[in-house]
Structures are given as C-alpha cells and as structure tokens.
C-alpha cells in the first residue's frame, strides 16, 4: 500500500483530524506554527485525557508517529481515543481509521478495531477498517501531502472559528 514516495510522508493523527476541521489549521499545524498551547479548550481536553481510564495502559506511541490514548488487548486489539464531545465526530472517526490503516499497512496488524470514548457523554463508538474507508484514508494522506507543499490555504470564516485557537492568527 505504501509506495516509496509515501514512505517519506509522516502523518500524525492530529493532521488527519485537522484535515476534516480546517485546511488552514492543518497547514499551520503541519508547519509547526502551533497555537494550541494557549487554548482553554485544548487544556480541557488534556485534563479529560489525563483523568479518564487511569487503569489502562495509556499513551502508547509507535514509530514516533502514531499515538493512541490507550489500548486494550483481547481477542482483538482495541485502539481507544478519548474525546470530549461529538461535535467533530467525522474528524474523530477518520483519525482513528487512520490508526487502523497505519497498523494494517505498516505493521501488518489486521485484527484491530477502533473505539472512540466519550466519557462525558457515557458513549462509545466502534469502528472497523474496510475496503472503502481504507481507500479513502489512502487518498486523504496523499492530498495532505500535496497540500503541505502548496502555500497556506486562505482562512475562511465559519462558526467553528470562534472557538479555535487560531482565530486571532487567521483573522487579524
């Protein structure tokens, strides 16, 4: 699945996530122009992350690239991602699908599922990698790679911008 040129492309989960949220944010974040350190929402998320599922083995990173909130091993490997709300659920889904995609194509681990935990909502969602979303993920990684070679995409104002850590940067 990975051709030679794609081996160079090291994408992290956050980038897949941002791809669905905002292309400008994705571009800036990928060029290490990061703003999240001052965002209250981000620190809320961090606190949630730190306070949830303390009994599990957490923050596993592989290849210095893919970092899971926690994993559980049983008949299948469960990859967990903890999120605060379902507002950006599409972005959450693809972030997790990307992890499964990475495990399958880079590590040869096929027997894995992804679970998104919403501890505040007391909900969880289970995801599996199939032919269709595997292809989708593949295309997304390619598109991200191309996008990052281009100039920064101009920001466009949407309701979500109001709460974004990049708001002042984008619109000043």
């Amino acid at each position, binding site marked *: 699945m990975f051709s030679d040129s794609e081996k160079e492309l090291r994408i992290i989960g956050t980038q897949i996530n941002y791809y669905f949220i905002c292309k400008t944010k994705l571009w800036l974040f990928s*060029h*290490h*122009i*990061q703003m999240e*350190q*001052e965002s*209250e929402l981000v620190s809320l998320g961090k606190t949630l992350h730190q306070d949830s599922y303390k009994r599990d083995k957490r923050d596993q990173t592989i290849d210095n690239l893919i970092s899971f909130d926690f994993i559980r091993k049983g008949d299948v490997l469960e990859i967990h991602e903890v999120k605060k709300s379902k507002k950006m659920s599409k972005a959450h889904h693809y972030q997790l699908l990307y992890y499964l995609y990475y495990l399958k194509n880079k590590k040869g681990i096929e027997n894995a599922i992804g679970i998104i935990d919403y501890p505040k909502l007391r909900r969880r969602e289970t995801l599996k990698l199939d032919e269709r979303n595997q292809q989708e993920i593949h295309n997304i990684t390619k598109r991200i790679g191309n996008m990052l070679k281009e*100039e*920064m995409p*101009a920001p466009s104002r949407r309701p979500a911008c109001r709460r974004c850590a990049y*708001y*002042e*940067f984008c*619109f*000043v």
Partner: protein
Amino acid sequence: MLKKNYYLMSDGILKRKENTLYFHNKDGKKPIPISKMYSIYSYGSLSFSSQAVHLLAKEGVPIHFFNYYGFYDGSFYPRETLLSGDLLIKQAENYLDHEKRIIIAGKFVEGAAHNMQKVLSYYKIENGIGEILNDLDSCREITEFMNVEGRIRAHYYEKMDLILPDGYKMEGRSRRPPENMINALMSFGNSLIYSTVLTEIYNTQLNPTISYLHEPSERRYSLALDLSEIFKPILVDRLIFYLINKKMLQEKDFERDLNYCLLNDQGRKKFIKEYDERLKKTIKHRKLNRKVSYRRLIRLEAYKLIKHLIGSEEYKPFVMWW
C-alpha cells in the same frame, strides 16, 4: 484565565516549593502561582534557585532583569518550545533578500510614525511627520530608513514639548544617562516595552534575533526592538503625558545628580503600576470583533508578521484607529 506580569521591586529570593514559586523578601514570603504567571520583571537584586529556574522553564515564563538605574540588563529566556523550522527559514530569507527586508523595515518606520501622529493629534498639535514620511518612498538602504526614522523622531520630540508643562520639557532626547525627567521616563518606559514585546515574541514561533529595521547584531533580541517601535508612542509616550499632566509623577519621584536624572523607587512603582494597567486595558478590535488587551495587540502584531513571512498576507503595521 488571564496570566499576569509580576514586577518584583524589592530585593529578595525566588524559591520553589513543590509547584509554587515563593518570593521571599524582608517582609516575608509571597506565593506566585506559576500557572498565572506570564513574565517577571525584576528591579531589585534577585537570587533564585535552580529549582525555581526549572519550574519557570517548564512553564515558559521569562524573567527580565533591570539594573539599579532601571535599565534593561537581560532576560532569562526559557528554552524555546515553539519552533518552526519552516518559519525560521522564511524569517532569514526575508532578511537576506534586500528587497524583502526593506519592505518590512519600511513598515516598522511607517507604523511608528503614524502612531506618533495619533499621539500628537490627540493633543491637537499640528506636525510635519507626514511630510518627512514621504521620503520613505525613495529609501533603498536600511541606513536611509534609519535616517528618516531619526528625523521623524527629532521632529516628534520637538512637538512633544508643547504637550508638557514648564519644568518638564524634554529638550531633545538624551540617553545613558538621561539628562532630565522626561528623558528618564522615556528610557525607563522603553526598556519596559522592549521586555514586554520580547515576552510576546517568546510565545510565538518567531525567532527574536532576526530583525529587519535594526541589524540583527545590534542587540541579542533585535526583533523586539523592531516591534517596539510601533508600540512606544502608544504605550510609553501617552503614559508619560498622562502621568506628568495629571501630576501623578513629580520632582520628588526622581533622583537627580549633576548630569543625570532617574526615577527613584517610588517613581518606578507608580510608573509600572500605570504601565501594567495599560497593558491590561482592552479595546474592541475592529477586525477580530472581540475585545483584546493592549498586551495582546503586540502578540497580534507578531502574528501579522508571521503571516507576511509565510506569504499569506502582507504586513500592515498597527495604527491606533481612535
């Protein structure tokens, strides 16, 4: 949560106990909650433990040191955590490419001049800054920009004397040592703003040593000098007029000698108190349509510069619109 600047005016020791910093001085010890700290300005003689430094570094809090006379000495600039190799390359490229550099250098001169005009027009004083500014168009070398900037300043200082009461005239700029009260205030204020701007730069991915109007070799953090130009009239000069015209600062707040004049402890305290008030004061930002503090305006200026450097939007210097 709004983070605060801490101004340590007395001699003392900075110690860490668990994850809190304490400032010990002759009056006892005072906790400084680290998560609420933005930067520290130290005017007395300060001792600190390496444990305290570890904590400051971890939380990214710089300390700015000022000497006995209130002049800037240097900073504890914690290890950079916000690094962008791509931006650094762009910053250097915009310096090395002469055409690109003079565009940015000119913007700093222009922004500073417009803000000086705003200060004077608030006091309804006619001035010729606009005419001198026209010469900017023909500038090709950095020295020429500096020359225009110098002429604007000289003219501005002349006009400033019209705002100030008798006994408090500036009569030209004198530095190191400042010869009279207004010069003393200006030197003191400028070193404050330099530190404030440096703290803002620290909190962005900009490298503080690559600058455009000032030569990068001039001082360690010359980008702070560049950006300070824009904010000096707004934050320092207006404050000086305010303090003098309201008689909040008087002769007794200064220490005089034959050839110099400096603020004394009490004067410094008054100045810093009002300065900090101004940094915290908010205005409704036209473009962002939300309230921002004056301190935040400096950060926004850094953001605008980043946008210019990465080619997303041409930099326009901040000019007061009120």
